[in-house]
């Protein structure tokens, strides 16, 4: 049996090359994703375990400070008396005040270090090695408030060394001296972060501004504790908890570690399925290619099989032969794919590193990953071969001996019924998503059903569709006619080789349209809602306090109003609110008020969004009980209700309500309106001069603002393109291979054409045009699915993120042109091979 299989594989070497390659590439992508995500997870785990050092318990305030630090809640400052209390707890080996914050280090060249994304850490230096993973390797520990120790990696990035003076933004500027360099768990830095370590005095002075000071007294960020040897972790935590008392929360050793890991788990929980779905798409596309190859090989062998059967070979023997062959090819290709996957993992790693998720070190290849990939690759291959094999085994001997030149078998009633039912289900899904309440999930399901329906109906649709797409080929005379007819002569084959391309292109089109829609929506929002001339923003979304005032002082500026986050407890419920000079802000940002008067929102008034008002049952004139983070209370009256929440959130509160109440006020952005007669260029120059000493601050006009957001959207889009590139390559290889095999099948016909006067050039053109028809068919179908899919998603979007559906006709035209070009490229090899064949070989071959 094995010998027959091997002999078969040998005989079909060239035909199997593309199956082999498709499996290899599909498995490589899958393995690459699995290996890279596992590696990343492992590295982050190690990193966070390292950063947790030997801390056995953490005590902090149970209240929130305003704002979020990278999506995490910031805790209010802790009463210093707590530290005195917990130090007395039996079993405590050490307890130290600790502050964490953001500290952007300015490098020797004056530019801020680090990329937009990974944290730029400002930490507290601890002499106790149990409390910190940082170890000084050069210089000494920080003592004075203006001394810092930098991570070795941070220092080398910024070209800084011990003794250098530089600036750190916390976000206020602090002039510091680098007194030492430290490693993190033996490495140069904690992943892609930058790190500056302050003495306790320095951290209290600089990092605590984030965690706030109560009535001028600076609170503690948190307390890190270690237990004496032999004390049980949980017991330790509960004794500390009891001693810490009201207004605090205590994390045990394991809770602390789990929380540290939380943030990265969120990232991984998003990243893993996202990457995995691209790998699965590649595998799916590969599956079509594999299916097609086996279908053709089997068809070619059908005559042979028919003969075998005529001389008595059993059905199951034929079946087993094909399955054994596919299993062997699948297995070997999967193993090769696994090897190649390590390269893919390296590539993905550097891609992720560019996105700020890079960590040094090697790859982690778990045995389960290897086995899983090989099994998946082999099973997919066998499953794809199963259909054609079963069909071959059913062939009646006499039927097999007849040459099947033009396939008429595609239009089966079962196929039509199943396909139509699936299509109907897709339509219902679309209605449910858009008109009904299904939302995006239903939309996604409808799209998947639609694609499935197209795959099922493909063989029925392919022939008429291909004929229509090929209509322009009539202009190419008989060569065009032949190409067009060849493209649809075997609809099943046309359908499956174009289906792979369809899926790839559909996703490309979907994301292209979604990105255009999002960009257009944002652009529209900015145009409608942003009334000022210029906007001042900053790296990390934190414009340093005081910037707005400084900008406002310039003679070129009429008004400059910042708006930023604060935390308040409203009627007993803690909320993130936005504080600003509301009447001025309302002049510069569209709020679309529905009740009350935005200009009245001063003093003891606030404004809420329509959604918030509905949710809480508030109306203009209602009085709301307000508690600030420092525990003081006041009452505010709803002065206005507004509708536009994109930039303003749900609650707008005057600055005066929160200022001097334990919350430092930073701004997301400062909106600037220039004085009459001042040009945007002149105003901008003046503001840039004002903020010249703030390296993280940026001045933008409205066009730049929307361009910067469009750029972020496009970055994601290009990443998606990159991820899909492999799938598209596999799809094109599939088309090329199908074409090769088809021309091989048609050897005699090609020879006849050459004999009766087809030139080589005409032969090449014929095959090329056939390929173009198939490619354009797949591309056009994919584009239709993608655009429709995007429309369904936009229409079913209830979050309001994507307001309008925008079809970027120019980009889609490029996609279509690329599709046609891809057809030409895919045909190069088959066409030249077929045209080089001598007519006689073909004729004699009969």
């Amino acid at each position, binding site marked *: 049996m094995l010998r027959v299989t091997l002999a078969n594989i040998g005989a079909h070497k060239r035909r199997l090359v593309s199956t082999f390659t498709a499996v290899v590439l599909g498995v490589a992508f899958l393995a690459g994703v699995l290996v890279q995500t596992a590696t990343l997870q492992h590295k982050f785990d190690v990193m966070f375990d390292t950063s947790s050092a030997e801390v056995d318990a953490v005590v902090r305030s149970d209240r929130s400070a305003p704002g979020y630090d990278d999506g995490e809640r910031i805790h209010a400052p802790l009463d210093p008396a707590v530290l005195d209390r917990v130090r007395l707890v039996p079993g405590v080996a050490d307890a130290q005040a600790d502050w964490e914050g953001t500290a952007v280090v300015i490098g020797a060249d004056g530019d801020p270090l680090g990329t937009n994304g990974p944290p730029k850490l400002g930490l507290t230096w601890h002499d106790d090695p149990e409390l910190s993973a940082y170890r000084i390797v050069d210089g000494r520990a920080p003592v004075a408030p203006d001394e810092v120790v930098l991570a070795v990696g941070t220092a080398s990035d910024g070209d800084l060394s011990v003794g250098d003076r530089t600036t750190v933004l916390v976000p206020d500027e602090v002039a510091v001296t680098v007194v030492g360099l430290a490693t993190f768990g033996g490495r140069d830095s904690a992943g892609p972060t930058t790190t500056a370590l302050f003495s306790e005095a320095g951290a209290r002075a600089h990092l605590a501004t984030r965690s706030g000071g109560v009535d001028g007294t600076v609170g503690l960020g948190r307390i890190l504790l270690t237990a004496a040897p032999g004390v049980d972790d949980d017991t330790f935590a509960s004794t500390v908890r009891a001693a810490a008392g009201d207004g605090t929360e205590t994390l045990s050793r394991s809770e602390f570690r789990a929380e540290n890991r939380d943030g990265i788990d969120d990232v991984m929980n998003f990243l893993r399925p996202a990457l995995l779905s691209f790998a699965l798409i590649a595998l799916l596309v590969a599956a079509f290619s594999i299916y097609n190859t086996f279908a053709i090989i089997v068809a070619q062998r059908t005559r042979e099989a028919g003969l075998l059967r005529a001389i008595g070979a059993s059905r199951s023997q034929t079946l087993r032969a094909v399955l054994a062959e596919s299993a062997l090819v699948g297995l070997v290709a999967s193993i090769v794919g696994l090897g190649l996957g390590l390269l893919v993992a390296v590539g993905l790693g550097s891609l992720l590193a560019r996105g700020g998720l890079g960590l040094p070190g090697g790859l982690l290849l778990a045995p389960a990953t290897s086995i899983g990939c090989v099994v998946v690759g082999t099973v997919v291959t066998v499953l794809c071969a199963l259909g054609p094999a079963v069909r071959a085994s059913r062939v009646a001997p006499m039927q097999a001996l007849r040459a099947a030149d*033009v396939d008429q078998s595609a239009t089966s009633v079962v196929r039509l019924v199943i396909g139509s039912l699936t299509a109907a289900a897709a339509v219902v899904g679309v209605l449910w998503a858009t008109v009904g309440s299904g939302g995006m999930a239903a939309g996604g399901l409808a799209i998947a059903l639609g694609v499935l329906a197209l795959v099922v109906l493909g063989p029925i649709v392919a022939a008429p569709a291909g004929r229509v797409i090929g209509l322009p080929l009539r202009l190419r005379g*008989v060569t065009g006619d032949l190409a067009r*007819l060849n493209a649809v002569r075997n609809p099943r084959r046309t359908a499956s080789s174009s289906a792979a391309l369809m899926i790839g292109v559909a996703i490309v089109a979907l994301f292209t349209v979604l990105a255009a829609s999002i960009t257009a929506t944002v652009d529209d929002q900015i145009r409608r809602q942003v009334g000022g001339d210029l906007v001042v923003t900053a790296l990390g979304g934190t414009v340093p306090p005081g910037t707005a005032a400084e900008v406002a002082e310039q003679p070129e500026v009429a008004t400059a109003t910042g708006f930023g986050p604060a935390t308040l407890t409203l009627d007993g419920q803690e909320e993130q609110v936005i504080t600003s000079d509301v009447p001025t802000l309302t002049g510069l940002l569209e709020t679309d008020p529905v009740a009350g008067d935005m200009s009245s929102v001063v003093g003891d008034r606030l404004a809420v969004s329509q959604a918030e008002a509905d949710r809480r049952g508030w109306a203009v004139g209602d009085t709301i009980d307000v508690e600030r983070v420092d525990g003081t209370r006041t009452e505010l009256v709803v002065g206005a209700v507004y509708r536009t929440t994109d930039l303003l959130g749900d609650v707008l509160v005057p600055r005066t309500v929160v200022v001097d109440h334990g919350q430092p006020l930073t701004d997301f952005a400062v909106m600037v309106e220039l004085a009459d007669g001042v040009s945007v260029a002149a105003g901008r120059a003046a503001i840039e001069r004002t903020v010249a000493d703030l390296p993280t601050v940026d001045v933008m006009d409205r066009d730049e603002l929307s361009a910067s957001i469009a750029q972020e959207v496009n970055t994601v889009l290009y990443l998606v393109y990159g991820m899909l590139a492999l799938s598209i390559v596999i799809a094109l290889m599939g088309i090329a291979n199908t074409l090769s095999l088809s021309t091989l099948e048609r050897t005699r016909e090609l020879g006849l054409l050459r*004999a*009766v*006067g*087809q030139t*080589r050039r005409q032969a090449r053109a014929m095959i090329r045009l056939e390929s173009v028809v198939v490619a354009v068919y797949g591309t056009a179908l994919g584009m239709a699915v993608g655009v429709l899919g995007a429309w369904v998603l936009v229409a079913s979007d209830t979050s309001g993120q994507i307001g309008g559906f925008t079809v970027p006709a120019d980009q889609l035209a490029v996609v279509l042109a690329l599709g046609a070009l891809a057809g030409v490229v895919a045909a190069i090899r088959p066409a030249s091979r077929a045209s080089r064949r*001598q007519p006689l070989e073909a*004729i004699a071959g009969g």
Partner: protein
Amino acid sequence: MTINVPVARLVGAEKTYGSGPNAVHALAGVDLDVVGGRFLAVMGPSGSGKSTLMHCLAGLDTLTRGSVIVGGTELGSLSDRALTRLRRDRIGFVFQQFNLIPTLTCRENIELPVRLAGRRLDRAWFDTIVGAVGLGHRLDHRPAELSGGQQQRVAVARALATKPDLMFADEPTGNLDSRTGAEILAFLRDAVDELGQTVAMVTHDPVASTYAHGAVILSDGRIVDRVEEPTVDAVLDLLTNVGGLTCSA
């Protein structure tokens, strides 16, 4: 049409496959004139070199030695492209089977060589040849819907479409029953007598040769005999001499 002037000639034609002790001399020095306006039958036992001779004459294959001249052009010096044009414009083909493109209708198959040349088929000529082979009502069918005999008629019409200098038929009736075969042979003869064509046909069937004006007998790559107005008996005799009555082409 010019009578008695050769439209194609083979001079000292040799074709050798392989080399050394394994060499097969498919053509071992053949001189042959194919005279315009005549129907020539090429006969001989299987393996005697009939197909090779035909292929070399038709520009489908090249000689090892000697020369082929078609309509005054020496083929040995032609590029693939020029050879293709020559086949397209000046030579018609009818093979034993698989003569037609399955995706094209009969009409399209007949028009194929003319359209490959980027021309349109002259209406009157089309009607003439279609009328001659008697296919009128089946023109818009595809080959798979036709019987073997009908397919060969389409092939004959296709071969005639370009008004070729020379038409080759390699065992055109080999796959047909004798009655259908006879019809095809009659068409070929009509093409010569009534349309002024020149036909060269390979066959091993003595009955088929009786439709020709003359026959040459091949054996081991050489012409061993020529007959004018061949009869079954005469041809049978000659074939028996070279010992090749048993096999097909």
